[in-house]
């Protein structure tokens, strides 16, 4: 049914994520701009660390024991962040990041939470319909590409990964969203909402404070 290429995909996700994490950590430890040798050293350390045995298994196998199907958008976002850290190149504009987070929050909430409210509905089932799901993905990619948003590129990547069975899962929705991507997206979206609420409150207070007769007179 599927070619056994998902270990290679998982290795790619592991390397990108750990390399990014190391770069982030190094930047935290030394806030000065770190040099190319340090970036390369982090890159070289990454594959070595991934083979550190944890509970009798290499670190990356242990990680994927708990997180079996990383989605393509999360690989895309990690790669974009890594590219920025390594080369200073911004593959994603702020609007692209926003769209990707919002998409993750909505898609994950619908996929993971719909059985709680709509007991007789099983949306995950439609992810087994290869052709229908592929058309759905293609349509989504076209919409975002036409809008000029690079989430469309990630969705196109998702479609390609799905067509070559890059994940252990045979269900299309697992290529599109995963629990980690969803939870982070919800966290990011919640932060935006809180910030927006706080800013609005400050604005309202500011307006109220500037109105005549509202200042304390006692």
């Amino acid at each position: 049914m599927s070619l056994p290429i998902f270990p290679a995909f998982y290795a790619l996700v592991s390397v990108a994520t750990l390399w990014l994490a190391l770069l982030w950590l190094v930047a935290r430890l030394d806030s000065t701009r770190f040099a190319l040798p340090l970036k390369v050293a982090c890159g070289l350390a990454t594959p070595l660390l991934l083979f550190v045995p944890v509970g009798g298994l290499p670190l990356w196998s242990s990680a994927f024991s708990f997180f079996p199907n990383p989605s393509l958008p999360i690989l895309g976002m990690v790669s974009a962040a890594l590219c920025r850290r390594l080369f200073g190149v911004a593959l994603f504009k702020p609007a692209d990041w926003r769209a990707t987070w919002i998409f993750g929050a909505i898609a994950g909430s619908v996929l993971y939470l719909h059985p709680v409210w709509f007991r007789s509905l099983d949306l995950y089932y439609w992810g087994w319909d290869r052709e229908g799901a592929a058309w759905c993905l293609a349509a989504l990619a076209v919409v975002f590409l036409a809008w000029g948003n690079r989430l469309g590129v990630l969705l196109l990547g998702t479609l390609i990964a799905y067509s070559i069975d890059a994940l252990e899962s045979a269900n299309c929705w697992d290529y599109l969203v995963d629990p980690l991507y969803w939870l982070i997206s919800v966290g990011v979206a919640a932060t935006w909402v809180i910030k927006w609420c706080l800013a609005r409150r400050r604005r309202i207070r500011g307006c109220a404070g500037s109105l005549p007769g509202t200042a304390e007179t006692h």
Partner: protein
Amino acid sequence: MLTAFFAARHASDEEFVAPAGIATTRRSPIGFNPGDTVPFFSHSWITPRGHTPVAHCSVISALPSGDLLAVWYGGSREGAADVALFTARLPSASNSWTRPVKALDRAAAQDELDRRIKKIGNAVIFPDRTGSLWMVYVSVTVGGWSGAALNIKTSQDEGRTWSHSRRLTLNPFLNFGSLVRNRPIYANDGRIGLPVYHETALKFPQVLWLTPGPTGSVREYRMRSLPAETGLIQPALVPLDHDRVLMMLRDRSDGRRLHTAYSNDNGWTWSEAAPSGLPNSDSAIDALRLRDGRILLVYNDAASGRENLRLAVSDNNGRSWQPGAIIEAEVHEEFSYPYLLEDSRGRIHLTYTWHRQRIKHVEFNLAWLDRRAVAETASLR
């Protein structure tokens, strides 16, 4: 172009619709004698005394050679890291089971699946049409049984050796929550409908449709859930006539009634499950369609506890049940997880967990079943 690409690479969407027909037990012609007329009953032990402190969840399968193969799990306790899957064989010309052989343990599963495995549990075995024997078993990476996932192994030599395990991704959230207990149904187009169930957060029955590939491989699989049936798990499927299938369900709710649902399209879609007239003590049941068209059920006849094991027979496709023989009854003991099989001679085999310590095998024929049913009915008058 997109459609053509996916159609070329994968099975067509014919596998996305209900099966056109399903294999049912061949009904005997009128006047056919489905076995001996002299009542027959015997029992034997599949697990030797003290083999493992705990033995549970047995399943048997008839093999092309005429042998029977049993699988169960055993270890120091349910869910312990030392739990392993064992098999034993009842050769066709013998009355005693071979010594148990370890088929899989946690370490081997971890090695084969290349991921952390905390424990293994329930397993079922069943043949496909090409003669391959399939084993679907539960493994857990994190947490309790609600974190379970299903894996497949196949055998080309009637269970003597097994292929490497393959993990199935069946659920969206970290693939948590699928377990298995009962035998599958076989669609005429080759698909296998395996009844499974979900246990993470919401508990409900599911049917896993497997499309076999060459030599015991899985070409396609997809899951159909019945999420509205909350609290009902461990579905047992019984193929009936005219594309109908009966589903019988263990009840985890406070109602404690055995539930039934029906499908009119070979197990693809299901009616709402309704409580039957029988109690269920939140324990596994099994049901089997006999050659004479009746349905044989084995269950714990109590709303709580697993202190007895009883047979019941239905001659109207599960709408009502006549009480049958009590196979076991002992206060403060457990008799659970029964599994039924009718062999080519018409003999009925029943395996079950005995005191949580051993797996017991009971064999009887229809003559014994009917005589005991008459006796039970008389005793109730």
